């Protein structure tokens, strides 16, 4: 059960998802300022309502769904402003589009986290392997020994492995320290 009752917990959730949610909202062609407002409002709302979630996935689903709904509302109202297709209902269904966009965002979010935990050579090498390059190619590109590439990559993987587990269930942290 996740309860966001103290500010530190909200802080953790916020920093884990804020950028991703704001970026996800760009699927609705809303400008950055407005997107940030939308997502910030949601976090304030989350705090005010003191909602509880059975697990992290439920919280995450709630966040993406709420962002989507609010964006649809904004689009609807903007449409009205421009007096365009007032009676046209925006179909909230399009489930698979929603899923696809959330999937892209979740992957992006995790890539960003990974890239930003690594520094220097580790980061370079992982970026290149994410781009699909093999060890020897990376070695040539970075002008280092293939063996060195392997060694650094192994270290980086170790960090990433830990990170991935923490990423998927980062809220374990919130749950266990209580």
């Amino acid at each position: 059960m996740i309860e966001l009752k103290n500010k530190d917990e909200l802080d953790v959730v916020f920093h884990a998802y804020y950028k991703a949610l704001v970026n996800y909202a760009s699927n609705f062609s809303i400008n950055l300022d407005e997107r940030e407002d939308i997502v910030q409002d949601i976090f304030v709302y989350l705090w005010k309502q003191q909602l509880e979630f059975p697990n992290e996935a439920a919280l995450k689903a709630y966040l993406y769904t709420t962002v989507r709904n609010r964006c649809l509302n904004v689009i609807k109202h903007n449409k009205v402003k421009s007096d365009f297709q007032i009676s046209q209902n925006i179909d909230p269904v399009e489930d698979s589009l929603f899923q696809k966009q959330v999937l892209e965002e979740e992957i992006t979010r995790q890539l960003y986290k990974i890239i930003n935990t690594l520094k220097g050579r580790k980061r370079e090498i992982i970026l290149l392997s994410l781009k699909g390059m093999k060890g020897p190619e990376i070695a040539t590109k970075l002008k280092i020994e293939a063996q060195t590439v392997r060694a650094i990559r192994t270290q980086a993987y170790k960090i990433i492995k830990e990170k991935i587990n923490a990423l998927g269930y980062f809220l374990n942290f919130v749950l266990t320290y209580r």
Partner: protein
Amino acid sequence: MKDIFLLSKLFIKKRLNLLTKEDKMILSSLQEEYGFYKNLKTQTLLKRTHHYSLIDSNAAWRKISKKIDQKSKRVAVFPRKNWIGYAAASIAILCIASFLVFQNVDFGQAPAVSVSQPVIPKGSSKAVLILNNGEKIYLNPESGYTSSNSSSNGKDLVYTESSDTDSVEFNTLAVPRGGQFHIKLSDGSEVWLNSDSKIKYPVQFSKNKPREVKLIYGEAYLAVTSSAENNGNGFQVKTGQQTVKVLGTEFNIKAYPEEPVITTTLVEGKVRLNLQEDTFLLAPSEQLSFNKSTKETQINKVHVYDAISWKKGVFSFKGADLKHIMTVISRWYDVHVIFENRALETIRFTGAFSKEQNLEQLLKTIKETNFINAYEIKERQIIVK
């Protein structure tokens, strides 16, 4: 949705050659189910991460943090006046007098009700007050608000009359989905706002001009003080192309952008309605409907109660189709409704339910009519089957 989160993790593991045997099995079955997975391009996704650098989450957190701290300091200091309390006792009775017999429902099928948390709370009093200078104030029963000419206990917002009538300050009140609010304007006129509604009004009405407010969207019930008490100044409500002029009366305007029709229902008194070039006079119990796309207008005699019951804590319908009923419900509970079988949208119901009950109870009542087979609550979506 859980699958999607799992997929995202597997995608990354795969790129880094970290997949376990079990992972591989899960991935291949999920891949089949979610066809769009195979179109994902690592390169494109890596590029997307650049957008993240443009977003300043620390600055955003500071903003939120400030708002949160402010909120917990504000305490409601006003006596509780629960205007939805009137009808709280009225329990949901969705009695069915179906006007349309619906054929395609398979009554033999075992009804399936699946519910996944979190429980969706009913709507409550809340609104965003936008001041003349653009400052936003969040109102709800936990956070009251006081200024030189207005005060709120988080359920009502009351403006006091001041001698300074030259000011032309406007406030805007936006009620979100799942919300409702009540305002008493500086002239004593009262406005009840339904979920997902927005109204703009002057903080002080001018002494020598007609009083004017603007319903930007949504639904409002207005009880207007007479012009005799206000220097003979009439009162008008603008909604899109429509202007309602009144001398002191009670009426309801419903103008949701997603609904094709604007309806104005007169409860008491007399109103004059200007629409495009035409003028209409409404008598009590008359309702004018204006179709935004065809521009057609129509005046009907209606049961006033159905049009204004929302203000009394009840949603009441007479021969309304399920799509409309679910739209009203979705605003109050802030959910999205999806009809898996679109034919169900047109079944008509007559009945009423209390706004005080929780969403599940209400859906059960509807399901028990056997006109729908099942419903599913998934996050904030209701799927009607």
